[in-house]
């Protein structure tokens, strides 16, 4: 017989994503969510106290019955099960964090509750890409590549045009594609490599250097410009460094004003919960959405599975979770 609090907790288990605001440490976000979930779960209606039969002394001094019994039986609530004595049912909820975001970046941050942490581990291990939007500015170079750093150099940027920018971007993309092929653990001149490349599954498995699978300039208005990046195994500092290097390639300097993650695997900005929705009810709704999406994806995947050729890669992934396949499917869509 599970208590309503435990039932609510079971419905809260799963993955969801939040929008982490900039300037806030990710741990603060995780702690706030944990506190809010605890509040929600412990606020469920308290169960009635169990009763116990005890022998209490007779209050009134009526002449003892035969046998000298001075006690009467009464059903008394057991106070040791009272919430004020035991404390709330849940004092700690396991909330795990997916790929981290450093303090000055903002964007999608994936969190997992309870059993969802196992799924999170698998998500971490499989090859998923993340998408970022980088707001950058020409003209300055700082020591830590962000706007808050100490200015190291200033330069002009009037000579920069969109076609020069495109040339540099394609050069960088080329270098990254080369790295992608180099770090994938297959022999480049094999049939296996060809088949993987056709499906877009070519790439490093697990830890490697950060690789940008896609780079595009979506807004160019000197001195400001905006880049859209899709990457693997990255850190936010590396992305800022990329911006700095791009500035150097263009014979000028550039600095990154803001990093925002718009997608982390299958979780996009649309599903992310903003600060005012970090309550237990909203989190429960987000997790229901995630579960229904998983169910519908599973249904459609069994249909496509039969159509896809069986390769060595596929046999390896069969042993992994269903999540992994879904992730790689999304990844290949994004890479193309």
């Amino acid at each position, binding site marked *: 017989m599970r208590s309503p609090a435990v039932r609510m907790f079971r419905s809260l288990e799963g993955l969801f994503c939040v929008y982490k605001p900039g300037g806030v440490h990710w741990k603060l976000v995780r702690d706030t969510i944990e506190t809010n979930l605890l509040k929600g779960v412990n606020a469920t209606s308290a169960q009635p106290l169990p009763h116990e039969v005890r022998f209490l002394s007779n209050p009134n001094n009526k002449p003892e019955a035969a046998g000298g019994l001075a006690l009467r039986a009464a059903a008394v609530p057991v106070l*040791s099960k009272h919430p*004020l004595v035991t404390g709330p049912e849940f004092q700690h909820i396991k909330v795990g964090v997916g790929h981290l975001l450093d303090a000055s970046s903002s964007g999608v941050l994936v969190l997992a509750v309870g059993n969802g942490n196992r799924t999170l581990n698998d998500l971490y291990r499989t090859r998923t890409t993340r998408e970022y939007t980088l707001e950058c500015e020409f003209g300055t170079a700082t020591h830590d590549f962000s706007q808050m750093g100490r200015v190291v150099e200033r330069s002009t940027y009037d000579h920069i045009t969109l076609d020069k920018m495109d040339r540099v971007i394609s050069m960088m993309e080329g270098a990254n594609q080369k790295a992608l092929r180099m770090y994938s653990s297959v022999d480049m001149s094999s049939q296996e490599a060809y088949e993987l490349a056709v499906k877009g599954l070519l790439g490093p498995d697990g830890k490697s250097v950060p690789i940008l699978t896609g780079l595009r300039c979506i807004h160019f208005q000197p001195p400001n410009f905006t880049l859209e990046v899709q990457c693997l195994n990255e850190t936010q500092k590396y992305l800022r460094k990329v911006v700095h290097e791009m500035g150097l390639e263009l014979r000028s300097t550039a600095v990154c004003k803001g990093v925002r993650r718009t997608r982390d695997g299958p979780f996009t900005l649309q599903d992310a919960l*903003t600060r005012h929705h970090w309550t237990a009810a909203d989190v429960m709704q987000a997790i229901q959405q995630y579960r229904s999406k998983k169910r519908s994806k599973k249904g459609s995947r069994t249909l496509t599975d039969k159509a896809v050729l069986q390769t060595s890669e596929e046999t390896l992934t069969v042993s992994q979770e269903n999540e992994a396949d879904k992730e790689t499917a999304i990844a290949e869509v994004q890479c193309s």
Partner: protein
Amino acid sequence: DLDADDECSALEEISDEEAVGISIPPSIPPASNSLQDYVDKSETLTKLVQLGVCLWKLERRPNVGSMLLRLDFSKDVAPWLLFLKEIGVEDSRLGYIISHNPFILSENLDNLQARVNYLKSKKFSSETVASMVSRAPYLLNFSVKRLDNRLGFYQQQLKLSASNTRNIVARLPKLLCGSLESVKENLKVCEIELGFKANEIQHIVIAVPKVLTANKKKLTQIFDFLHNTMKVPNYLITKFPQVLNTKFLRLRERHQFLEYLGKAQYDPNLPSYISLDRLVSLPDENELKVKQHVKKKSQPLRRHLPTTHRGLSVVNMASRAPVATGRLMLGFRKWYYNLCGFNKLGLLYEDTLYEDADVKEALRRLPENVSNDRTFRIKRALDLSMKQQILPKDQWTKYEEEVNYLTPYLKEVIRERKEREEWMKK
């Protein structure tokens, strides 16, 4: 020895007298980590739970659990509860007070009475004393001397009148409980780091006493944002001290939203002014409406600003806009422009500038298309002047068409030169 067990078996039937005579050893453990084991057997603990005391929090504090167990309800607890009731504390608050300050039960009743009398002698009304005790459970644990010391400190340091001191202490009784060092540091921060004058600090503290106990880092963070990013001067902050009490993230997102709308105006002398107190105090009711509104505008900025739609509702049309001084001069300027004559040759003013070193450098920095246009205009003008002609009237450069294309570059060049000269001087 196994023979002893044969004498009495558990399934043996015995008479009622024998049953009553069997002594049952107490089932409570001699030592335990939690009060759960003792609650049902101890009258004191049962009555405390019925009062609403959080035993699970208290048992974590060292020695409190054993102290509570040793108390006898009628002798050690009831008189204190009656005393609190007499001062005017409500029944529902008794549990709260004991949960937070169980040591009130170990204080001498006469001492407690003396402290209450002292507060009353300082002209605190009995309701105020009751509310102060309810909200700051540790208040009556401090000696009369210490309370006196505290009140004197606030009165002297802030140079407040007696009634004002009473006011802030009644609203924030925690001021009399904590250490004075942190309050002194906060005052120093306000004076030195934030740059408030003594009378401004006084005003702020009377309006928002929480500033005295606020976290210094958070206080400086909010002030830094207000002063440097929102460009709000000190006197405006003094006028609306509630801004110092808000959450930083809330302030930041609302300011960024207003900036996005173009309505971030906090100076009361300029039009479309937004007062700071409304900026921080209005709740987020219209948030969803605004999210959709902002969503339509631009995707990347949507997540940047999920805040209220307060820009339009809060706009405060302050005093009349300043008089347009340009209108009077405009006619004169137009006449002078036509008098100069270069517009009849199809030139702009900046084409006629004398080419000294700065202008040459600025010209070098012009973008290609602008530079080409300028070359064309100058060539045409030279041609016309050679032929001693001017352009037909419809082709003259009009005053409205005048564009200062060179000025930004020229300004930059001059600034750089000055900087270089400054650097060379050193």
